Each structure stands twice: as structure tokens, then as C-alpha cells.
């Protein structure tokens, strides 16, 4: 009889994934139901905005600037072939607002803040701090998880917006300051082509969705980790990898909804 070990493992993995997805969804609802403490005692959430937002600032700003510089150079190189280098501002702004801003900021956020959140909660679990809290009649979901979740959700759109601003600044540095595209044309073309609702607002919506996804994955992986050193390190890896996949998949779904051409 042939050994279907591979198939069996595949099936087992799939069931396991689905199971975890179900648990994660239930966890999401539990966070939402237990968010009262995080909002009522807002200093708790403030500390997490500091932890996931302020501490991610440097990497977000620096990366945004570099992405903008590269976009400026590549964009100029391509656009001059068609004699439309005046559209440089448009290109830089649209690619940042619609895609690169939310997506790259989300990926950086996942690797900087998401991993830190998963590590923090995982370690608290491994050292029985969560159990101790539970024994003190303090719900760890309300006291530990929910503030971290909301801190991440609030930080993410701001980080994406700052990333886009730095990127546009980088494109401006290359295009206007170094190459010499006319400054007035750079800005006016950008303003004429970028629509508030269609481009800016949709980008913000994307970043909010990514913020929810990354924060949820991070707190869930931390909370669900095995309470050992190895389990925590695996949870951190999983948090970053799953977040990255979730961002890219969600980006595809959101983009196909948002920027669909009218029939």
C-alpha cells in the first residue's frame, strides 16, 4: 500500500491553518469586546502608540526618503523617454499614495513594531506574567493585548502618511533640486492629477486596514505562542512572515476594489 504521508501532512497542515484562522478570528472579537479598558484608561494605549509608532519613526522616515529618491531617479529616466518629465511629480505622488506608502510602511511596521509586540506578549506568556495577571483577576486581553492592538492600529496610518510625505520630498529633491524639473509644474501637475477621495483617502484606508491586520497578527502570534524561548522566537518569525503575506494579499484585494475602472 502506498504511503500517503506527504498528502496526510499537507491535509493536516491545512486543517491546522484553518483552525488557527478560526481561533484568530475569535481572538479578534475578544479584543474588540474587551477594548473598554484600553480606551477608558487611554494612557495604556498611549504607551503603545509610543512603542509601535514613535519607535518606528526613524526607520519609516529614512526608508521613505530613500524610496522617494529612487522613484525620482527611475521615474525621470522613464518619463524623459516619452518627453513627459513634467509628470514626474504625478508619478511619484501616485505611486506613493496608492501603493508604496501603505505597503512599504506596513511591511516596515510589521518587522519593527509587529515583531516587538509579538516578542513582548510571547515573553510575558513564557514567564507566566499573563497567568499571574489572570490570577489577580485582571484580564490579560483587556490589559495587555487590547492596548497594544489599538496602539498599532492608530500608529499605522500616521506612519504611512509620513512615509509618503518623505517619499514625495525625496522625489522633489531629485526632480526639482538636482535634475531641474520646473518646481511649479512639478506641484501643479501633481495637484491636478491626484484626487483627494480616489487617491489620498483610499491610501489612508489601505494603511488603516494594514494596521489592523499587522497588529492583530502580532498580538495573536504572541498570545498564542508556546511558552518557551523557542516558541517565542518562532512566534516572532511567524508574526513578521504572516503580516507580510497578509499585507500583500490585502493590498491586491483592496486595490481591485478601489481603483477599478468604471464600466
Amino acid at each position: 500500500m502506498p504511503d500517503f504521508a506527504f498528502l496526510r501532512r499537507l491535509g493536516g497542515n491545512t486543517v491546522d491553518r484553518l483552525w488557527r484562522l478560526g481561533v484568530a478570528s475569535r481572538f479578534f472579537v475578544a479584543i474588540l469586546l474587551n477594548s473598554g479598558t484600553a480606551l477608558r484608561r487611554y494612557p495604556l494605549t498611549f504607551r503603545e502608540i509610543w512603542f509601535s509608532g514613535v519607535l518606528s519613526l526613524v526607520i519609516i522616515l529614512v526608508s521613505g526618503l530613500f524610496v522617494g529618491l529612487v522613484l525620482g531617479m527611475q521615474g525621470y529616466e522613464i518619463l524623459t523617454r516619452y518627453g513627459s518629465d513634467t509628470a514626474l511629480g504625478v508619478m511619484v505622488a501616485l505611486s506613493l499614495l496608492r501603493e508604496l506608502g501603505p505597503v512599504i510602511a506596513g511591511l516596515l511596521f510589521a518587522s519593527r513594531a509587529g515583531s516587538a509586540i509579538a516578542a513582548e506578549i510571547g515573553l510575558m506568556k513564557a514567564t507566566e506574567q499573563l497567568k499571574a495577571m489572570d490570577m489577580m483577576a485582571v484580564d490579560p486581553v483587556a490589559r495587555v493585548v487590547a492596548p497594544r492592538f489599538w496602539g498599532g492600529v492608530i500608529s499605522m496610518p500616521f506612519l504611512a502618511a509620513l512615509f509618503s510625505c518623505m517619499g514625495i520630498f525625496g522625489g522633489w529633491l531629485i526632480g526639482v533640486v538636482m535634475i531641474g524639473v520646473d518646481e511649479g509644474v512639478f506641484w501643479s501637475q501633481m495637484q491636478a492629477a491626484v484626487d483627494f477621495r480616489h487617491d489620498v483617502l483610499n491610501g489612508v484606508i489601505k494603511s488603516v486596514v494594514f494596521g489592523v491586520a499587522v497588529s492583530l497578527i502580532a498580538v495573536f502570534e504572541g498570545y498564542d505562542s508556546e511558552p518557551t524561548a523557542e516558541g517565542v522566537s518562532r512566534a516572532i518569525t511567524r508574526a513578521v512572515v504572516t503580516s507580510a503575506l497578509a499585507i500583500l494579499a490585502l493590498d491586491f484585494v483592496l486595490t481591485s476594489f478601489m481603483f477599478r475602472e468604471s464600466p
Partner: protein
Amino acid sequence: MSDDFLIRIENLQFAYDARPVLQGIDMRIPRGGIVAIMGGSGCGKTTLLRCIGGQLKPAGGSIRVHGVTVNNLDQAGIYALRRHMGMLFQFGALFTDLSVFDNVAFPLREHTDLPESLIRDLVLMKLEAVGLRGARDRMPAELSGGMARRVALARAVALDPALIMYDEPFTGLDPISLGIIGQLIRRLNSALGATSIMVTHDIQESLLIVDYIYFIAAGKVVAEGTPDDIRRSDDPFVRQFVRAEADGPAPFHVPSENFAVDLFGADARGMQYA
């Protein structure tokens, strides 16, 4: 309810999946006493403690604390009950992102609306009781194991609980710290008028401070008595435990197939006594 016993446990059963851990435990713990639950590693002592605290739901039997049946309570009821419980975890489980002061203040801040000045007085009182008032600004990472255990003890009694539970309070401590913790447990119990349950396998230290001892093996109570009873006991299991002998009623070997069969295969069955 004026009951002489704070905790009554009847025919308690618990299983992890299919593996039975507790198989019919009966226990009564008097108010104001210190009771030790002893047994080898993995005999279900910690599970028993978790059941009393409502962290695990038993499969059968009943646990009554303060006249309330724990296994019938919902989450809110368990939380209400836990406000009268303090628990000291094996390695302290201090919150690593909070200072010693904030760790002890944590239950007070979570459960009371006391002004900060009063919280400060209460925290300093508890820290003074464990002799660590001078370490209030340190972080848990800057404490020795024994000091961390004492801070955790101060935190466990911050709300003046009626019941204090200790999960392996002596594990991994040097003899001096061990003695200090033992004396603290005794002193705090009488000072607070509390009742204490201690899960441990440190027989010598326990005999000095507890009022009553239960021995658990294979999920059942196998022996019980006051420290004097225990010292004088003829029970082979208790003797093995008190004298720390390697083999006895508590088997050295995990139940397994015949060693010869394991080594040489099924053919070896016949040559066993050859």
C-alpha cells in the same frame, strides 16, 4: 457562612485530554492554616492549585471556596473570587516592564480607586514586610531570584487576600533565601489572618512551617497529617519521601515493558531467567 474550613474539595477529577491527572481528591483546608500539598514532580499538585484558582475546569467533583463552588462559576464569578486570592508563581512572574514599586502597586491600581498617596503608603508597607523597601525603584531584571520571589510575595498579598496560594515557592533558591521565604510565609499568614496552600516538594522546609500536609501520588491523596504525624509515620511512601530514598512505593521507573524485551526483542522473553 461560618465554616471552619475555607476550602472543601470532594472527589475532584481532572484529565488533560485522555490522560487522567487527578482521580478523586478529597481535601479540607481549615481557616487560618498553612497546608502543604506534596508529591513527586508531575503528580498533579500544580494542577490541583490551578483548579482551586479556577484556571482549570475539573472533569468531576467539586471545589468549594468560601462556600462558593468554583467549578460552576462563570468568568465574572471567578474574577470576583480571585480578588480574595493571592498567588505566588514558581519564579515570581513579576511584570518585567514595571519597577518593583509598580509591580506591587499593580493589583491596587487595577482593583481600587485609591489616591496615589495611599497606594504609595500601602506598597511601602508591603515592601517593608518583605524587607525590600529599599529596592522599590529597581527593575525585576536587577533582582536576585530570592528577592524577586519576595517582591512577588508582596504583590500577592497587596490586596490582603483571604487565601494565598504558593506554587513551588522554594524552587531554585539558596538555603538562606529559602529560610527567609519560609519564615515570610508563616509570618504573613498570621499577620493577615489568611489561609495558605503551598504546593512543594521541599519536605524539610515545609515540616517547619506548615500545619498540615497532604501527600499526592498518581492523582490521589495517599497520606495526610500534621508534621509530627508525618515524621513518625510508618507509611512507606511518606518514609521514602521524607528520607529522600530513590526507590520505594513511588517507582523510580516509568511503567514500561520488560527491559530485556526492550533490549533484545521478543525472543528474549524466554531467556529472562536463563
